[in-house]
């Protein structure tokens, strides 16, 4: 069990990296995109606008 947890922790750390907020922002952006697509509304602009907004806000941190 200890090795499975360590293995999972390694991959989470590898993918999420040192800033978990980026992963959260991407998942939120994709969720909004999915909802708009499901409602039949053009959603191609959501991720680019969301990412630009996230980058701007995140620059206040190092």
């Amino acid at each position: 069990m200890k090795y499975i947890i360590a293995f999972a922790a390694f991959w989470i750390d590898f993918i999420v990296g040192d800033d978990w907020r980026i992963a959260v922002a991407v998942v939120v952006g994709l969720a909004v995109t999915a909802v708009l697509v499901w409602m039949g509304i053009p959603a191609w602009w959501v991720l680019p606008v969301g990412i630009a907004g996230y980058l701007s806000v995140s620059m206040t941190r190092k």
Partner: protein
Amino acid sequence: MTTSQIFLVTSTFLACAVEMVEALTIVLATGITRGWRSALIGTLAALATLAVIVAILGPAIALVPIHAMQLVVGTLMLIFGLQWLRKAILRASGRKAMHDEDAIFAAEQAEARKHGRDERAGLDWYSFTICFKGVFLEGLEVAFITITFGAAQQNIGLAAWGATAALIIVLLAGILLHRPLSRVPENMLKYVVGLLLTSFGTFWAAEGMGVEWPGTDLALLGLLGFYAIVAFVLVRQLRAPQAVRVA
């Protein structure tokens, strides 16, 4: 060669070159300070482990349905790309220290001198583990980028050529110069790779969600241009004296 194929080779080549330069610094610092045998065995062991992972992951990813793969690959690429791009913007604006291979080399050498000799399986265990870890972790990111990039464009072979070319060039430069490749414009390369990964990640992740891009594949160029402008504006704003102070 099509535009997307050029993007594919360029992205894998640049990402691989940057990561290989970082791995080379660790191996050189350890090898020069503590001897080459254990450092090189650690490096070869890491490369062999990576080869096994690539051999398993490569064919497995090709079995995933295209939309699911685009979503997974796009999401991962977006996360990696944003990490690189964010740091590159902070570095370009002077808010974060530039990546300095000479300084890292000196720090690695100082660390290597501090540790006593611990012999295990006939190896200097410090040299072996530090080189294994360094090469494996840097290499894993390259392997991930190469496989996912190649798989999403259904051309893993071309992506592998880009990565291999970078590996050979960095390795030859390291053997010839015998010191860290501090003259490689690493920060600029990370900026470009961050832009490419973020653009491709956005394109594929959204497409995987069922989005139809205006102009289909041409939207990729639009995304690249859009993110380049956003990054440029952010660098300019952060450089300005009235910019918000970093906490």
